[in-house]
């Protein structure tokens, strides 16, 4: 249906000779604009609609499907509405925000189609709780093993125990930026410290080294999960706020046209 709509409108755009040329201000421009604005409002209503899960003909599933296809058709409708005239103004702002929403939505379609599989493939049989528990257990063991160590050596273990951030911030999560991970730094510092160690201390340090490396593996595992989850959710942090900004810009776009009629 959405494809048919797009093809029809595109054909109409190129076949109908609008004088002097296409823009938002011709009869066709106003029609496309009204259609586009109505669509945007309807698409935004998914946020309301999704809070009521219903089955049947107008199920939430069908609604979301229509949301995706009609949302995509909006790229065609709105672009035709512009008549390919852009500028530094509120009208183009609305268009850009709309395109941001649509592009983020497209990413969401891809994310929802492919990431859940990746997520469960990464997880295997392990639950997220178990991942955290494994890390907590390793931390406990590290804490235990480090008891005989003096202040400086203990500081190395404390670095891993106290400064390791499993998930991190938005970009860290999305791009997996864990270069300065405290656990990794602890491993490096321990490697240097072990060079001079003898006797029982050396044994303890070897044990701690093994634990830190195990923790690094467990961290990498959990962080893959974090990253996929971030990708899965991240687009909504663009899609939803930009939708609000778009609705505001759209209102400004329409009101300003009538204001300076």
């Amino acid at each position, binding site marked *: 249906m959405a494809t048919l709509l797009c093809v029809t409108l595109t054909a109409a755009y190129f076949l109908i000779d609008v004088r002097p040329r296409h823009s938002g201000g011709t009869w066709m421009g106003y029609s496309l604009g009204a259609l586009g604005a109505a669509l945007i409002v309807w698409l935004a209503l998914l946020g309301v609609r999704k809070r009521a899960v219903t089955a049947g003909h107008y199920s939430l599933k069908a609604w979301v499907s229509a949301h995706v296809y009609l949302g995509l058709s909006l790229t065609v409708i709105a672009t035709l509405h512009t008549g390919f005239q852009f*500028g530094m103004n509120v009208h183009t702002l609305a268009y850009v925000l709309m395109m941001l929403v649509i592009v983020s939505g497209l990413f969401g379609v891809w994310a929802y189609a492919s990431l859940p599989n990746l997520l469960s493939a990464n997880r295997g049989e392990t639950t997220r709780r178990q991942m955290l528990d494994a890390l907590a257990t390793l931390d406990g063991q590290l804490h235990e093993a480090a*008891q005989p160590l003096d202040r400086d050596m203990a500081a190395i273990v404390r670095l891993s125990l106290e400064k390791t951030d499993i998930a*991190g911030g938005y970009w860290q999560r999305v791009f997996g930026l864990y270069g300065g991970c405290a656990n990794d730094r602890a491993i490096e510092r321990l490697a240097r410290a072990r060079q001079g160690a003898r006797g029982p201390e050396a044994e303890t340090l070897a044990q701690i080294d093994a634990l830190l490396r195990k923790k690094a593996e467990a961290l990498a595992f959990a962080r893959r999960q974090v990253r996929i*989850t971030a990708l899965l959710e991240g687009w909504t942090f663009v899609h939803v*706020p930009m939708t609000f900004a778009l609705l*505001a810009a759209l209102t400004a776009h329409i009101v300003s046209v009538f*204001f300076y*009629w």
Partner: protein
Amino acid sequence: MAQEFTLRLITRQAGGGEIVRTRKVEFQDVLIGRGAENDIVLDDLSVDLNHAKITRASPGRVTVEAEGAGGFTLDGREATRAQLDVAGEPRLGFGGYDLVLEPGEDGEVVITVTQREEPHAESVSLFSLKAQIFGRRRMAWIYGLIVFAMCLIVPAAGALFMDHMTIHPDKQWSSGPLSKSHAFLEDDCQACHQKAFVAVRDETCLSCHQTNLDQAATARLATRLKDEGSPNAALAVKEHATHDELLKGAPPPSFPGGMIKAGFQWAFNHPATRCASCHLEHTAPIPEEGTPEGRVKRAATPELAEPFTCGECHDGLKKRLPATDLLDTPDWGRHPGFRPLVTVSAKGEKADVRRIAVSAHPREDSGVIFPHRLHLDPLGGPARQAMQLGADRGYGGTLVCASCHRPDKTGTGFRPIEMERDCSSCHSLAFAGSGANLKFLPHGQVDKVVAGLEAYYAGGGSPSAGSGRRQPGEFAGLSTVQGPRSSAAAAALRTAFAPAGICSDCHTIQRTGGWPGVRVEAVKLTDRFLPRGGFDHSIGAHRGQGAGAFACADCHKAATSDTAQDFLIPDVAKCASCHGKTKAQTPAAASADCSTCHSFHRPSGPALTAQDKLMEAIRGSWETAPAVRQ
């Protein structure tokens, strides 16, 4: 008095509740550290193996001393050594542990050890982004409100309540640049958009573009525009027809599209009959051919949107405007034949000028006697005389059209024929004197001729021996009732107005009673036969330049015309032999747009190009020299 410390170790359980273990230390000091040898073992890695020592100083007082590099906190403050009054129940902090000292029975010191908090266990919500970023909802509202405020509230408030803004928040509402001619208004939206939610009205446009302003008003307008920064004077628009005629003459809205459109225009108070309905501003400029895209920042003039084509209105026009005398021209192929202005009679006070179709073979009576054939004949007398006059007097060869018809300033048309300039080289008005002292008759009015002759002969002049084409002979019609004051003057007058005299060459002379006894029939030469068309003689293809082009003789059959009564303007078919044709049909093929010959606001001329308009604007007016009007 027991010299003991009582240690009370409190361990918090995960499910709440506490386990309390109590033990007594019977030494003078209590050792604190992570090492197993200490009295109080704190398994916190931030605690040193041997961290501190509590020593009894005096009854009720103890000294706390750090053993290594790490200190402790005393009631929240950092310290490495302190003497404490146990009665004050001081609280010492070592890593994640708190030690509270309090007096017990018999001078005992009770030390209660509690772990402040179990290390916080991470929640699974850590995996979700929501844990990390502040709420989507809050972000959404913030972005939405920012855009709403900056893009709608602020500009609207500025537009409504502030007259003179130094910044113009409403500029962001502009959907595109103004054309060059209006660019100076770009910061001043209210210059045109005077009332919110009311479409730009014609009065606004006419506040600058009003035509027929008096001199004072024109000067005031020019000053105002200059102050506002306009680079040009405003064009005074001449209307194609009255507003009322335009409304009635336009075809009714089509069914259903036009009617729906009209309905919307009515509902949204956006009439399509305004100046701004056709002259669009705020549109992205169309890049001119050969100009890289993006280089053109502004169009030269507002973009034109034609609600109707010329043909749509000029088809069945009489049905809608019964009073019109315009013939329908639905398209170029059905352009009616020309109906030029023909001077049917030049006699009388006012010449009788009528529109007569070329196809009706009109005869013109301009009052002048002029055989084109005789003058253009390369072997004829005039040609020979022109050759004798020579190049230094503007001749030198046989006579051609341009020998007499001289282009006007623009080259589109011709200057009116003037006897002295265009004819008198041959048809000399000299009547006396010789060489450099030739005396000329004034041309134009009989009275002046008479006065001139009398003045000359009263001064004792004598007729020249051989002046031009003066013929001997008597003209019996010259009466002597009043009589000339000089018989020489009378003789000269008789000579001039005689049937073969100099005047009779071109004029019809009527004999009358009284003095001077002659009347020259009025002459009315037409400047423009087709005042509603904009035929441009300066165009190369109209001047015989280029393949297939037409020279003068192709349209004007002057070389075979023996009398000035012959009408030498061709019909529209002549135009159609190039206009509307393809290059295959004629190399001189050209477009056949209505605007090639007619301009909407100036139907007497072709549509002006943007460049023309700017030039016109600089000159200050669209007005052209008035042509002959009916």
